[in-house]
């Protein structure tokens, strides 16, 4: 009997020794995978783990369906993620659903090097109390400069089949497409969302899209337009600006940017409610969203840092060695005409317009 309890005791002791030797906290960070996660690994995770040997960051590439999974995990009270990378619209929704922690930005995040508070530094990009922006990206057109008669300069050229014949690729969702259609149908860009709030406005946009519907290939994943452009299956197509940068600068394809009426959107972090490592995550976030780190990320991927103070620090691309600033969607030359994704409008109307959109697609 004694012997047995001694064995148990020593086993327990062994366990506790093992546990204390392994006093490492694993943080599960959910992101988009591919080049994007790689840029985060290089700019945030690796430097942080180097100075904090007790933290181990695990990448989980589930961001694509994070909202539904997070809601389900929350329902069960069993949240296994520590930090999730989402687009701003999803951050607002997660915040609304009570699935994300409310962040006091000035308290939790580092101030800018010049002492400006975090909330001032991020400015109006703080679109939700739960959201910490990382990057500004844009949905924008790229076109095959060898397959068109003259350079495309206006987003309305996409709707001009006579001047620029050939297929186009557009995202299979109403967001952005309806805005572009209305602008090209002569609606004042400032009044686009007032128009879309009415049935007539949505119909007007769909009628404009009807004029090119037969020449559209609809995409659902960000990689499709670059692929279609490279194959020459489309002459012009919309996608995220970072994908086009890779296509033009890394893969050297004969493609040019059409920045006109690019639509800005934000991507950033939320801390899921119920994470078991909240203190560690907040510690990590303070580091990963500081001015230098956000500027560093732009070395690996051509998305603009969300802090104003990061802009002057943007350097050259890590492997291509080219200046990144002119490739940023926020560069003054690129952002002469822009729209900002209207979060409030789409949060209210997305499902309703989506039904109309799908009915239109099926006609």
């Amino acid at each position, binding site marked *: 009997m004694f012997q047995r309890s001694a064995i148990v005791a020593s086993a327990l002791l062994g366990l506790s020794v093992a546990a204390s030797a392994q006093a490492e906290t694993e943080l599960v960070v959910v992101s988009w995978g591919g080049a994007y996660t790689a840029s985060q690994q290089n700019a945030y995770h690796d430097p942080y783990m180097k100075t904090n040997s007790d933290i181990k960051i695990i990448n989980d590439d*589930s961001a694509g369906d994070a909202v539904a*999974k997070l809601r389900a*995990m929350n329902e*069960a009270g*069993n949240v296994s993620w520590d930090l999730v990378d989402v687009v701003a619209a999803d951050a607002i929704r997660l915040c609304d659903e009570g699935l994300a922690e409310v962040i006091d930005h000035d308290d939790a995040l580092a101030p800018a090097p010049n002492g400006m508070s975090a909330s001032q530094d991020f400015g109006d990009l703080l679109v939700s109390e739960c959201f910490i922006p990382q990057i500004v990206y844009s949905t924008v057109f790229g076109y095959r400069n060898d397959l068109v008669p003259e350079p495309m300069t206006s987003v309305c050229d996409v709707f001009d089949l006579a001047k620029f014949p050939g297929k186009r690729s557009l995202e299979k969702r109403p967001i952005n497409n309806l805005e572009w259609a209305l602008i090209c149908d002569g609606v004042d860009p400032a009044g686009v969302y007032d128009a879309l709030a009415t049935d007539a406005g949505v119909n007007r946009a769909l009628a404009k899209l009807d004029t090119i519907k037969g020449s559209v290939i609809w995409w659902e*994943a*960000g990689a499709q337009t670059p692929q279609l452009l490279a194959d020459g299956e489309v002459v012009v197509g919309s996608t995220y600006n970072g994908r086009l940068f890779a296509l033009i600068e890394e893969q050297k394809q004969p493609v040019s940017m059409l920045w006109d009426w690019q639509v800005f959107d934000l991507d950033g972090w939320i801390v899921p409610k119920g994470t078991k490592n909240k203190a560690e995550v907040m510690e990590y976030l303070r580091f990963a969203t500081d001015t230098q780190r956000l500027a560093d990320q732009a070395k690996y991927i051509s998305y603009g840092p969300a802090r104003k103070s990061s802009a002057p620090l943007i350097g050259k691309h890590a492997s291509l060695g080219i200046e990144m600033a002119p490739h940023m969607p926020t560069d003054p030359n690129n952002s002469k005409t822009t729209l900002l994704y209207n979060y409030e409008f789409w949060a209210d109307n997305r499902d309703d317009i989506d039904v109309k959109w799908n009915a239109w697609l099926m006609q």
Partner: protein
Amino acid sequence: MALPSYTSVPERIWHYLFIAICAAVFLFLVFPLLVIIPLSFNAVPFFTFTKEMLAFDLSGYSLRWYEDFFTNPNWQGAVRNSFVIAIFATLLSTFFGTLAALGLSRNHMPYRTLITSLLISPMIVPLIISAAGMFFFYSRLGLLGSHIGVILAHAALGTPFVVITVTATLVGFDNSLICAASSLGATPTQIFCKIIVPLITPGVISGALLAFITSFDEVVVVLFVGSFRQRTIPWQMFSGIREHISPTILAVATLMILISVILLVALELLRRRTERIRGIKES
């Protein structure tokens, strides 16, 4: 199929037409699988036969997509997950399924029809509905995004196959064999080991193989119940096709075809063995 000499001309024409139609359908069935194999050795990242390939020039072929598969951590993780999930799901469904099939085959099973239809319902309900239901319910149990959740789900989908195949081996089983054995003094354990086990083994194994392949090929439920950390080979293929079709997927597909061939041969051998055993019994 030689034709008798007295067949008329229209009959002959019809006969050869029929053979031609059948040949075309068989071609339709296997050609898509065969065409993938050479394409997976393509040296360029396209789904087309290059001139070099058609000229059987070795430079047109390469193993780069296989190399990518064997070195890419995403695919390696998927392979590991696929096997872990499929093996545990198979063990569960084989154990529960065999036991239930033995019970269902007994003479005095109450509510046999009702219970059988409940037990095979996972095979009948459309997968998207099962997946949606499991997503909602497993989330309540906290099983979402866990290996256990996916294993349980796959085990449920696999059990009908085990129940059906094992029950089939017991159809027409002569119960007097058991009576005879027990009247000759055999213990229940002996009866089980000496009579029932040899009889059902082929059915159990083929049921297990079916359960295995069900899990191994399944993607809808994994997509809903699983998370990135449960990604299986089909999951990885699905997101690969959606995002960017690289020929690595063709290489994986070729390997998957190889696995199906192995399973198919195993099953065929088992089937023959069952026939032999039952043939001996019946004669």
